[in-house]
């Protein structure tokens, strides 16, 4: 391959010299033809050089056939708790295709809400909002409409509980895989560093240790969190319509935007 590149480079240099000579001698026609040849040679050089590059690089990952909402759903199913777009993308990167980007998720919730309003319960699941203790949609979190409402609402302790649960779920999934993908291990390590006793320094986390450590902390919060969540969920069930139950009650600012 590189021999043909060398030959092409020689030819390009020679053609350039000839173009220069033709221009100096005022031979416009010859210069034009030579320039055409030069361009062809340069194109050939480009093609050869990129061919070598792509041959040495790993084959590009195949674009996933699943639509974006299916990909998000798959990541959420793995995590089992409401998650931010950032985490969903990270999980998708680690375990599934690497084709999901954060920017694709921005309008997802709005689209789902529109679809639900047009024909309620027409789809088997909707990607909906997690509700705060004021029953408004929590910023940036996505949830699955088929989950029990206790799982979709948040108390003050819930962000931490959900973080620990998602770390456990990721670790469990990793432990099931015969060949854990390195990206997934990195993700777990990053999360485990923020759980006491789950990882040592910057070394890769061990899934079993991470699960044990996360459970140890979960035990501390779980009862209180479940109580707070049950209270919010009961309130949501009493006060909200079907649409609001999934996508949150409008806050004053969104109401203002509507009128």
């Amino acid at each position, binding site marked *: 391959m590189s021999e043909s590149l060398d030959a092409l480079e020689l030819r390009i240099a020679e053609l350039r010299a000839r173009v220069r000579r033709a221009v100096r001698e005022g031979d416009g026609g010859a210069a034009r033809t030579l320039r055409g040849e030069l361009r062809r040679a340069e194109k050939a050089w480009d093609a050869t050089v990129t061919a070598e590059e792509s041959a040495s690089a790993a084959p590009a990952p195949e674009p996933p056939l699943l639509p974006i909402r299916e990909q998000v759903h798959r990541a959420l199913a793995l995590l089992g708790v409401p998650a*931010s777009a*950032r*985490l969903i993308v990270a999980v998708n990167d680690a375990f599934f295709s690497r084709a999901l980007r954060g920017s694709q998720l921005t309008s997802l919730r709005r689209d789902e809400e529109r679809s639900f309003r047009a024909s309620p319960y027409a789809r088997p699941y909707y990607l909906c909002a997690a509700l*705060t203790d*004021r029953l*408004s*949609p*929590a*910023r940036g979190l996505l949830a699955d409409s088929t989950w029990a409402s206790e799982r979709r609402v948040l108390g*003050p*302790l*819930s*962000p*931490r509980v*959900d*973080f620990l649960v*998602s770390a456990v779920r990721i670790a469990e999934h990793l432990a099931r895989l015969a060949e854990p993908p390195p990206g997934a291990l990195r993700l777990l390590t990053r*999360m485990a*560093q*923020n*759980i*006491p006793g789950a990882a040592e320094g910057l070394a890769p986390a061990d899934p079993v240790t991470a699960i044990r450590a996360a459970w140890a*902390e979960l035990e*501390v*919060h779980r009862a209180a969190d479940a109580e707070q969540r049950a209270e919010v969920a009961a309130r949501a069930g009493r006060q909200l319509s079907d649409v609001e139950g999934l996508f949150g009650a409008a*806050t*004053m*600012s*969104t109401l203002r935007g509507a009128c």
Partner: protein
Amino acid sequence: MNRLDALRGPVSARPHDARAIAALAANPGCARRALLDAAGVDKDRTARHLGVPAPFGRSQFAITRGNAFEALVKENGCAGLLRLLRELFGLAVEEVGYQDVESVGAHLRHSHTRALIDRAAREGEGTAVFYDHPLLSLEIAGHTSYLEPDVVAFQLGGRFHIVEIKSFAVIDGQAAPDKVAAAARQAAVYVLALRTLLTDLGHDPRLASHEAVLVCPENFTNRPVATSLDVRRQLAVLRRQLARMTEVDRLLAEVPDGLTFDLAPDGDGVPTRPARELAEALSRVPARYAPDCLSTCDMCMFCRSEARECGSTDLLGRQVRDRLGGVSGMAEALGMAEGVLTPAEGQEEIALLLRTAERLRQECLR
């Protein structure tokens, strides 16, 4: 306050953000700055109109980097921050509550912050530890400024702490001192705002701790590290400066009648006042220039060239200026160093020092 309106001209007063308020504390002795800020003059536009815009601005790269680092620290319900606080303050394992103030919608944030802080101050234990995206307010010279602690106020042992996330690196336990100082001043503004809020609500203002937490990337990694930052000094300076602004009458009394910094903007807001006239008006109010101004004040270039023209020792920085106390200007200092001028009474010591410095310099140059 009518005098202040006259100083500003017929435009609305410029609200202050935390950076601007923090910059106040950077140079408490500057009457020009105190007056311009009290009147709410748009210093940036004034400097631009004078043809000496400030050399700093906010780089898009720095903003993106800062936001990315902040998102990293705050992701997953402040999981990263929680680890740091557990290490630094020994926060108990149960203390993990997290409230996103912004979930109520943007315009209710301030009242919601008030409500949450009030509840936390009354009930103490069992409330959230983190308050993300709070919105505080501070009254500056009759105008309310809204402040967003770019971070969180967290509660530890019944006291609130301000957390300041900055994206400059702490390398081997050391960070750039000027950046730390700027962060401390900014944190002091938030502490002050929080204390004002607590006083307002009828709680003890000391519930807001004077120890802020500074979170920065560690060494050359993106891993956050936290340090505790005592902002008592900055708080004191800030209070004094704000008090000066409320006692601005005293400053105003020294201002000649009819003085105004009005840019006389036309219909499109383009200033029409001759720059020379404006510069003259500004020079009627004394400034205290220091090289630090270059990174905090919009008027820095104007004050610097002024200090240069009159050969002021301010140009050399505070330490040198303080050592040269009693020496009126650069010319006098140089004269004494070269031995051309005979030192007046009380100047013998500094003259000796200057002559030694000059001799050393000559030896180095030889």
